[in-house]
């Protein structure tokens, strides 16, 4: 990759251009001028870049070429479901009738976008086996917060919040689960993972009592495995009066195959930027709808789209936990997810999980001899978690190095060092949109890297050498953080 500038990072837009240069003109106010607020209320100076429009476009085009996206190549980032994002969905979200709708517009004038929301709510309920949903959460983590707060308020209404202060979270969970429970005022008890990769049932039994508010379980879990006996877990959690929460980050694995509600979960969130293929945007925007059974439905975050004789409207559930954003949710993302859902249909969604799981298993089969596989059931769902422990032990090559070497082979690395229970973890999720040849090419690179680790271990330790930039020094960035542009001398 050649961006034509040796050290593009050294010069921000702020360091380019020239005083007085303009990229766009603003209409002049020709009318009678009202007096402006006094100087004490007015801005003294504003420092922003001064560039021509061509310079802005070239600068950001150059930056884009330093990036790797799904459009660039295989991106098997485990638990993130980096599948191809259909371009038509972006165009649909940009239709002026949808994109320019004001959130406070009278409901009868926004029936079209409310219909999108309503049908999406219904489809997500049907797919997950729940009675009700809210599209309000802006992302998965906010969906989790919504779900845990629904539990909190329900316990409050039962008069049990005072004594139910604990949330159980498996040690394989995403960090957002314990962080969310803490944000909602609960303490977190970690449940270990058994040798088969499911939650340790005995440990769960020991921890379950009337001090427990909820258990949060990722389904399938972050090892890419089905949580065995989940319906029994649900029964035990319910027996002590607690709720069972499903983290639906990995829904892609079981789309159309199994439903959280049927398995005994009370509440769940799903990530539309994952399973419903809306662009990840370099870290958002996403959407994290929350779904639940009839018992928790009165607590859903506002708003929900309600259908009654007057048409569609935005409603507030009776005991709602309240709003999560000023307005109604990430509708631009919801429209894309709806378009995806309609273009797939049920058969298409079932084909998604089938191919996603097939690809992950194929990849597992191609790599299982070259890498360790700590929780081995002979089969996986949507992702496989390998370990670079053999490479580290025998050749001093770490998973970190393997990831950087994959960059030189032209691939985005998988998720590394997660889940935390797997040493030197390589969490690989190929997704259904990678064709067989791409899965094989990725496996070929992984096998070549395993061979290199033995023959030329230094190659890994100095990688990447073909990326836009080499390994960066992270420690000084955290000790003496340089977090913003300042003019020379300031």
């Amino acid at each position, binding site marked *: 990759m050649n961006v034509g500038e040796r050290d593009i990072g050294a010069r921000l*837009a*702020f360091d380019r251009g020239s005083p007085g240069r303009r990229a766009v003109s*603003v209409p*002049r106010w020709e009318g009678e001028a*009202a007096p402006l*607020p006094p100087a004490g*209320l007015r*801005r*003294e100076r*504003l420092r*922003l870049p001064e560039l021509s429009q061509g310079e802005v476009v070239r600068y950001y085009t150059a930056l884009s070429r*330093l990036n*790797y*996206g799904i459009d660039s190549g295989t991106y098997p980032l485990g638990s993130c479901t980096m599948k191809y994002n259909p371009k038509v969905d972006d*165009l649909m979200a940009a*239709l*002026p*009738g949808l*994109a*320019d709708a*004001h*959130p406070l*517009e009278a409901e009868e*004038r926004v029936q079209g*976008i409310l219909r999108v929301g309503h049908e999406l709510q219904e489809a997500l309920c049907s797919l997950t086996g729940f009675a009700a949903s809210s599209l309000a959460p*802006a*992302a998965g*983590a906010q969906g989790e917060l919504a779900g845990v707060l629904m539990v*909190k308020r329900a316990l409050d209404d039962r008069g049990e919040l005072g004594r139910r202060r604990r949330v159980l979270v498996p040690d394989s969970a995403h*960090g957002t689960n314990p962080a*969310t429970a803490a944000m909602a*005022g609960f303490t977190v008890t970690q449940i270990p993972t058994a040798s088969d990769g499911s939650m340790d049932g005995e440990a769960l039994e020991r921890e379950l009592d009337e001090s427990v508010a909820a258990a949060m379980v990722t389904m399938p879990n972050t090892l890419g495995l089905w949580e065995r006996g989940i319906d029994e877990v649900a029964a035990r959690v319910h027996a002590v009066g607690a709720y069972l929460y499903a983290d639906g980050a990995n829904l892609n694995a*079981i789309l*159309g*195959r199994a*439903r959280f509600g049927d398995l005994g979960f009370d509440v769940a969130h799903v990530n539309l930027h994952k399973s419903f293929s809306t662009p*990840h*945007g*370099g*870290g958002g*925007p996403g959407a994290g709808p929350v779904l639940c059974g009839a018992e928790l439905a009165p607590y859903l*975050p*506002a708003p929900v789209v309600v259908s009654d004789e007057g048409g569609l409207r935005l409603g507030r559930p009776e005991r709602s*936990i309240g*709003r*999560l*954003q000023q307005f109604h949710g*990430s509708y*631009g993302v919801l429209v894309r997810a709806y*378009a995806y859902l*309609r273009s*797939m249909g049920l*058969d298409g969604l079932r084909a998604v999980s089938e191919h996603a799981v097939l690809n992950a298993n194929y990849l597992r089969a191609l790599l299982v001899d070259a890498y360790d596989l700590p929780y081995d059931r002979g089969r996986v769902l949507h992702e496989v978690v390998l370990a670079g422990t053999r490479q580290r032990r025998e050749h001093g090559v770490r998973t970190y190095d393997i990831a950087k070497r994959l960059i030189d082979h032209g691939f*985005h690395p998988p998720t590394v060092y997660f889940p935390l229970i797997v040493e030197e973890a390589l969490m690989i999720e190929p997704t259904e949109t990678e064709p067989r040849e791409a899965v094989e090419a990725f496996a070929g690179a992984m096998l070549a890297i395993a061979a290199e680790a033995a023959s030329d271990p230094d190659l890994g330790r100095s990688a990447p050498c073909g990326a836009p*930039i*080499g*390994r960066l020094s992270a420690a000084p960035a955290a000790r003496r953080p340089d*977090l*913003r*542009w300042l003019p020379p001398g300031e």
Partner: protein
Amino acid sequence: MLARLGLSSTAELFSEIPERYRDPAIEIPPALAERELVELMRARAAENAADRAHPSFLGAGAYRRSVPSIAGSVVQRGEFATAYTPYQPEISQGTLQAAFEFQSVVCELTGMEVSNTGLYDAGSATAEAVLMAARITRRRSVAVLEPLHPGTLDVLRTYAYAADLDIEVLGAPPDPADPGPAIRGALDERHACLVVQQPDFLGGIVDLELLSRAAHESGALVVAACDPLALGLLRAPGDAGVDVVTGEGRDLAGPVGFGGPSLGLFAARRDHMRQLPGRIVGRTRELHGPRRADGEEEEPRTGYVLTLQAREQFIRRERATSNFSTGQQLIALAFTVALETLGPRGLGESAELCYQRAHRAAARIDELEGYAARGRGSWWFQEFLVRGPLPPAELLRRLKERGITGGLDVSGRPEPEAREAILVCVTEATPAGDVDALIEALASVAAEAGASP
């Protein structure tokens, strides 16, 4: 592939799902081909009567703005749009450097020292600011000054319930340019922070310096939720003593989009850097410069990484500052490109144009028989209160009959100037013809109502 796996059918891939739960009945309509999908979505869009062809004077936290078109085209680049959180900095410098630009733009605009890479929206960003203030001060009460966006107040209540904080709502000062008296006496050593909106929900411009001075007397931090376009004209809140600035970036990044996806701005003092929620990008260098053909090592180059990650959920888990993970990176990119395209003069001129157009429209409405149009307080920005010959709901209904969304009925609010009023918004992007149409419609409604002043 199946043969390699020793399977005879793909159904076996799911054999671990107990049979009684496998392949349930699901109601999803059959698949549509691309052409059918486009027809369906066009029909949905046509069911709305809410695009820019329909005059609307709604604001209240979502504003139709003049966004430079290149903001929209840059974010369409697949390298930006289809990447994810930059966990691998060597192949994510585009996202990372752009995020550093964003942090820099937000710091300059707000007059603050540090910014994160953005949160969900103004409401949740303000709630995160309140949680941060509670962590820093170890106090459990939160004061909010009316008029505050009701959506923001609702979100604050949601997050306060999560964190077991108390919310106290302080009545609006009669003049936002003199907020001190409303605050003094209301705050004490129990208060973690005072939350205020600039301009306030009814459009009034707040003197943040007087407000900060009054709030700081009790040791409370000041959290100001600011409209970023207004900051093109108004004093940087950081210069006025504000401790945390939040805001809504969506409308300077693209269309209002039924209110989302949004972009929460969040900037603070450097002292509080390690308490910030969300992701932060730092500037650093390569460990080693690239090697030339002759084997010599060149100077290390500048690069960007996610930093201060010890605050974050994927490392700290239940001790993290927030559960924040996926955010609004692409909207933040559009916001950055838009502001850097406008530049310092363009932003200032847009803000002033917005101010002048709104003031002119208010003056014209005020001249109409039967109407009074007033901004709140001594100074106001883009929203003003209109009282007419009919009750607000009826006035809005008659305007709607004439194809116009006249504004927001705020008659239920406690502030005296909101009584019997609608909140009307005119921005730099409101077409002049729409204002003419509103004036004409208001006049015809008044004639119809047979009203006199």
